[in-house]
């Protein structure tokens, strides 16, 4: 991870940093929060929310930032604009809070992403369910969450494959509705497996 040039000692500086930091920083502190803390159910959905709460004690702002679902965004610039809007409107309503020093600074960092193939290649629903249990959490995150930035779609690799290659649009839609903020990433994996295995056993009993 790279250490960025921007750092914020208060909310005004956070706003400035959100405007000027590279896209990779926005990506790191939002999309990457979930895999980095994938084992905690109660984690804030992004680092900006956590810092606003923990270091600035601005829980109302933190709640608004935490309410952002990264899956609603298909580009980093769209996400950046929303983050800027949230902080800007909060400071407009509470101008005296902008310069109040945070307990600790926020350091903008940036991710280095390398995408690599794995050995898991599947051709049917049974193999898919089996592979889902064995791939890393990072693979789940990449195909299920990060992918939206690549596809520019509010969907995910799994749902698209189920819909286009296995012609299972209902199952695809079911997966796409899974709440990623309501459990750990392992919980998300279990949810996907449960839904896929449910479809598998339904097929068997029908067939």
């Amino acid at each position, binding site marked *: *991870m*790279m*250490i960025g040039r921007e750092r914020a000692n208060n909310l005004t500086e956070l706003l400035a940093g959100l405007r000027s930091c590279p896209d990779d920083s926005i990506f790191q502190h939002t999309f990457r929060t979930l895999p*980095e*803390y*994938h*084992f905690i159910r109660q984690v804030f959905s992004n680092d900006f929310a956590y810092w606003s709460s923990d270091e600035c004690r601005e829980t109302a702002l933190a709640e608004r930032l935490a309410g952002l679902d990264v899956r609603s965004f298909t580009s980093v610039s769209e996400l950046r604009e929303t983050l800027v809007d949230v902080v800007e409107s909060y400071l407009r309503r509470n101008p005296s809070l902008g310069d109040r020093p945070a307990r*600790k600074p926020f350091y903008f960092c940036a991710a280095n992403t390398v995408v690599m193939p794995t050995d898991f290649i599947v051709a049917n629903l049974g193999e898919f369910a089996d592979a889902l249990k064995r791939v*890393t959490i990072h693979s789940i995150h990449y195909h299920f969450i990060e992918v939206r930035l690549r596809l520019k779609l509010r969907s995910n690799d799994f749902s698209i494959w189920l819909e286009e290659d296995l012609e299972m649009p209902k199952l695809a839609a079911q997966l796409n509705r899974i709440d990623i903020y309501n459990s750990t990433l392992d919980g998300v994996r279990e949810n996907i497996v449960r839904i896929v295995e449910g479809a598998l056993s339904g097929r068997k009993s029908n067939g």
Partner: protein
Amino acid sequence: MDKIREAMEKSAGGVLDEAPAAPAAAPRVYRRGAHLIDTPVPPPAVAPKIDDYEPIIGRGQVEELRFLAKALSGKTAKMVNSTAVGGGVAEMLNRLIPLLTELGVYTQWEVITGGNDFFEVTKGFHNALHGGDYEFTPAAREIFLQTNEQNRARMKFEEDVIVIHDPQPMNLIESRREGSGRWVWRCHIDLSNPHPDVWSFLEPMLEKYDAAIFSSPSFARQVPIPEFLFYPCIDPLSEKNKELDDIFVQKVCDDFGIDRSRPIVTQISRFDRLKDPVGVVEAYKLVKKYVDCQLVLAGGGATDDPEGSVVLQEVMAVAGNDPDIIVLNLPPWCALEINALQRASTIIVQKSLKEGFGLTVTEALWKGKPTVAGDVGGIPTQIINTLTGMLVHSVEGCAYQVRYLLTHPELALQLGKNGREHVKENFLMTTNVRRWLLMYRIMLGVV
């Protein structure tokens, strides 16, 4: 064995064959169990192979390392630091270098040489870079430059990536030639508040590197080269962290007179005021009013550090005659015993007042232990308050959190689980190998 015995006796502050002079009810400075007396200095551990980590991190992550290394096959690297033994950097390099080499990135490790005068200067630099007072004399400057020059004369830098660790060998960068490899400075210390004279001497050297690596964003300086974040790490297969048979854990507890049927609160650290061992005893006394428990304070530094022995005396004074306070001044080769003590603990405390990264916290979290620690240095990076442990700012806060966790074992268990996962994701040796491979790829433009 004589040397061991001598060291043990020195460490114990007495002769091993003699019974402790302290009254039976007094805190034990050193329990002379047969187990420890028979424990020789362990031979250097055989470095683990990448596949040995698979049961811990999973096949997927092992494959990930192999994939990242594949494009670097045949590339070479050199790491340079100032000591081959002792200290966290040497310990880390001992494990890191064989793993990188096994993955196909042949990595050589060289240690600079220097006289006592050089190491006196660099020790002064170290303290000054941490913000301490220092008089930077022209003689110190000359000694630093001359020793670097002598090392440059005997060393070659023909590798694809050259990594210089910490300030001591920093001026080896003068050996950089047009078209030669990429140079990276790995800084293991906190540069947030350096002595201005020392920093203005070192900064021009840093600017000649291609990149710098820091252990925390808050330790970094704003410099015109790319800066990367590498957290320090622990090796899950080292003696201090590997899984232990419970029979051994029980034996260590028996040797030290620790009762595993009652809660055990432990702080592992040097007898150093910045680790606040006296504050830990005070916190324990507050806890003890409500919950029956024992306190184990185990560490070294009371033998080789004059201040350490003073701090140990302060601890003993505040501990008084409580037989449930067990103070252990352990020799440095007791990694297995430290491991066992951590595993036997109900709660681990690291009530530091100032800290680097705090690898003892990493060790505790890795063992799944609910951990209560000071909100300083690198500790908050590891302890996400109330999620992977508890952060505290006072004796009273420490006592409250220990008490709370002792009486809420389900929360304690969850914190321990979360803490272990956090370490697994971010602070293991294998994560560090991944970071180095990524760094090499970036430096060499391997996409």
